[in-house]
């Protein structure tokens, strides 16, 4: 670092994160600009504006002390659970499924916030747990309950994608917290048995159909297979260098559904080709690598778990979304972080980023990278 030539406040910023983030967001805005037919409205301008706002929020989060995170973990988690129940109740009254609360000035989707929420509360829990207990039931049962409540509530909404994201975040937290490996192997084996049963009993019809169609998209070319088929056409027709900026026929002629939200990667790949796709993958790789590095040099167990968990949450978004648009996963409504248009996911991801930035700051304050 060239600390000598740059003001400390600026040098202290995690540029290794902010620069890739900006690159990704601006690239996303470019794609949204093209998707809107060469216009900043309605998506591209809003996308950048939101990012700026949430970046400020993330920086504010980054300035919060470690104790504040510890204090807020459990009440925050409990509050989110209450909100989830509230959504459920209002939904039952209003009829139909509900995922959000209308607060008047904004709509709040508690399940979104639960993604970083579960990471925070588990980091807090495993930090609190005496290391000696980490192999016994005390390490598993409370965590399981903490995961089970929100996951079940979200499944009830029903929102499979978010429930999976919450579960994935929690399970990775347990893995990193040092729970015995046999648990994960056993759970994996049990999952292999339970998954088919759950598929036929727990999933809703439309979810089951999505999975089936994912196996064979061409079986339903006009129904739910349409999304996957058109997305593959968009990506495949882009070739190595793409069709050129503003020339993506799949998105411009509305063949590609959700071209500005869930399938923004396909919109991008059609115009920018494989080159654009590799660039996006590379930038995500940089961001995620930075997140893991932060966690590895974090000063204590709480910070380590927190940073790794937040990184994992972002990773899960990226991984599922890209697998979905490339036809490797069923269609679940998960947007691509920093590129898809949409406030909720941007907020969640920026909370994750802010938290990792905070851990980064603690690590530097605490005498640099100890570990």
């Amino acid at each position, binding site marked *: 670092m060239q600390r000598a030539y740059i003001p400390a406040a600026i040098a202290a910023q995690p540029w290794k994160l902010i620069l890739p983030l900006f690159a990704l967001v601006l690239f996303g805005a470019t794609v949204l600009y093209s998707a809107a037919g060469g216009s900043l409205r309605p998506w591209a301008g809003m996308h950048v504006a939101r990012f700026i706002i949430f970046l400020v929020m993330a920086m504010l989060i980054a300035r919060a002390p470690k104790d504040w995170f510890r204090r807020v973990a459990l009440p925050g988690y409990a509050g989110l659970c209450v909100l989830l129940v509230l959504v459920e109740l209002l939904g039952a009254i209003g009829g139909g499924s509900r995922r959000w609360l209308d607060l008047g000035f904004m709509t709040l989707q508690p399940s979104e916030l639960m993604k970083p929420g579960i990471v925070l509360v588990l980091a807090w829990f495993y930090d609190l747990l*005496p*290391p*000696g207990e*980490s*192999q*016994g039931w005390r390490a598993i049962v409370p965590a399981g309950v903490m995961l089970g409540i929100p996951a079940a509530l979200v499944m009830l909404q029903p929102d499979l994608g978010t429930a999976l994201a919450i579960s994935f975040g929690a399970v*990775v937290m347990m*893995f*990193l*917290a*040092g729970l*015995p*490996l*046999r648990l994960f192997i056993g759970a994996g084996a049990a999952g292999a048995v339970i998954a088919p049963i759950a598929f036929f009993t727990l999933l809703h019809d439309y979810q089951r159909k999505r999975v089936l169609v994912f196996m064979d998209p061409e079986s339903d070319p006009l129904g739910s297979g349409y999304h996957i088929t*058109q997305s*593959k*056409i*968009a*990506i*495949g*027709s*882009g*070739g*190595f260098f793409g069709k050129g900026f503003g020339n993506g*026929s*799949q998105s411009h*002629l*509305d*063949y590609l559904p959700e071209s500005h939200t869930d399938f923004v990667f396909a919109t991008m*790949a*059609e115009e920018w*080709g*494989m080159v654009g*796709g*590799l660039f996006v*993958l590379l930038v*995500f*790789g940089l961001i*995620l*690598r930075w997140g*893991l590095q932060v*966690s*590895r040099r974090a000063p204590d*167990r709480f910070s*380590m*778990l927190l940073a*790794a968990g937040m990184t*994992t949450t972002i*990773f899960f978004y990226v*991984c599922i979304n*890209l*697998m979905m648009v*490339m*036809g*490797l996963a069923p269609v679940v409504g998960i947007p691509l972080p920093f590129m898809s248009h949409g406030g909720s996911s941007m907020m969640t991801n920026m909370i994750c980023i802010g938290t990792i930035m905070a851990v980064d700051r603690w690590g530097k304050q605490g005498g640099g990278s100890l*570990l």
Partner: protein
Amino acid sequence: MKRIGLPFASDKRKVPKLPTTSIALNNRFDRRSFVLGAAQGGVGLLLATRLGYLAVAENAKYRAASESNRVNLTLIPPRRGWVIDRTGAPLAANRADFRVDIIPDRLVDRDRTLKTLQELLALPDDKVRDISDKLDKARGFQPVEVAASMDWDHFAAVSVRLPDLPGVIPQRGFSRDYPTGAAVGHLVGYVGPASAEDYERERNPLLITPGFKIGKDGLEKQFEARLRGIPGARRVEATASGRVVRDLGTREDVPGQPIQLTINGALQDYAARRIGLESGSVVVMDCATGDVLAMASMPSFDPNSFADGIGRIEWKMLSEDDHVPLRNKVLRGLYPPGSTVKPMVALSFLEGGLDPKESVNCAGGLRVGNRVFHCWNHHGHGSTDMLKGIYQSCDVYFYHFAQRMGMDGIAAMARRLGLGQEFPLPVAGQSYGTVPDPAWKKRKYHQDWAIYDTVNATIGQGYVQVNPLQQAVMASRLASGNILMPRLLLDRHAPAPKPLGIAQDHLDLIHAAMNEVVNGRGTAGKARLPIPGVQMAGKTGTAQVVGLNVGNGKGGQWKHRDHGHFICFAPFDKPRYACAVAIEHGGGSGSAYPVARDVMTFLFDQAKAMEVLEGYEKQWGGNVTQRMAAKYASYEAQFGATAPKPADDAQLAETVAADNTPATEPTAAVTDAAPPAPEPVAAPPPTPDPSPTPAPPAAASAPVAATVPQVH
């Protein structure tokens, strides 16, 4: 990891927490976060590989898919080749029109759409029901016609409402037009939308293009490949919802090739109209070339209305008509030819060496074995030689000499003159009937030829079955002495026909006898042409349909009346045209020869012939089109609401095929004497004959002994 962690946990449970455990957990975090990072990297690699596979390896496939999404190719149906007659006048042409179709797949709210269309286009209720029926039956991609030949106002009214009418396609196009309508129905056939089976067979997107029609019957079907042409195309860039973004270009269609027929359109129309209320057929051939100048089968259907698919009222009308309007009687009607075979039989006698002067005494009947075969004239013709045998149609003359000359010679001559033959014509099929001989009977019934079989065959009864085209060919070959082959496609450079190899003096004798039939002491005096200097030669024939125990062949039930036949050629001394007329259940040859006379007259003096026809049409209630329209109106009034669903394409084809199945041959051998039908007859009731020519010799009373009904 477990090896390190577990011993601590178990051994030192009670020991206060040691930093080593925490360090162990941190180590474990390090390792596991490394695993996590590696897993993330692995996923990244997997995604990059997948991206490369889609974008590079499969690029061509997806590029094509994207193009096919982007570019919407609208085929423009090619204009169909014309069918023209020998003078160049159209028998089937194209008319520019506006049309509206529905693609069932794209319909959103069918009832509402139909209701809107009904209001916009002022469609009658039964038409809407027809459309609804077709929508039920059509596969999703098959366009269903709502209206064609629309005027601009209606077309515009639909066009501006398009956003509210998904699945409705208005377009400018061409529709098939048959100027002479029903007169060419059986000859030219008709066109219609391709059926699902057609599409399965050809897999050509043109077939499911709205407004495109393929030949369904007749020449339209036979010459489909030649008439079709090459479609044009309009390429547009369209959104997923079908909104056109911009035009990418249009390729003009290449119209199909025309076909020119030997048919004389005016004559064809005249012949069809002249058949009038009867169920019958007229064939006219050119005696020099074999060109078929007219080939009319009536009643018929109007191919113009078939082109839009058949409506329920029309269907009821056609399927309930006992005059089988869907059967092409020229090729598919099989009849015992009756006495029209006598000139042919006499010719075979001459060729066999019989002296035409040799005579037999006709006393009204002839005993053959233990049966008496009657002459149609029970009073007898007295001494009868060949000439008189033909012009008086004396049965006894033929009974007598056929026994001497033998059946094989007669059958050979029949085939030489075209009976029992199938001709190389571009038609879906011909029922070629039977020319019986001893070998045939042995094969068919495992019975020996009996003498009464010969006797029956010589008067065109018994096993003998012919179609009207064969009769026309027989007439033309008798007239010309050449092996004329009927032709439908005009070929001005066709080689001249070869001679039959029959002595000219034999032919002259037959011609003289046939001239006598019309212009002398014969059975068809009223068939004389009203043209000075042109004499027509002919031969009458009456074929019994049922035994005399069922009906006398004249009146009574229509189905029981005798068939009437007439073959002729003119001028008798220098034959140019030959003609055969067959009237089903006309009550005898008296129903046939006035038709032949007028059709032949038309060839020499159109005005005179038209005058006669117009006189008749006043009595019949208008010309063919007017009568069909009147019938339609009465059906509509009567059954408008209750008519059953019309046949779809497959059913229609099936019905047409059923109507056109060859009449079956008698399943059991005929064992009795066939009674000769009376010959000639007085003017039959359904065809009043205003002709001023003197009445022919009075009809004889019906023959007495007859028990075997004839199959017709």
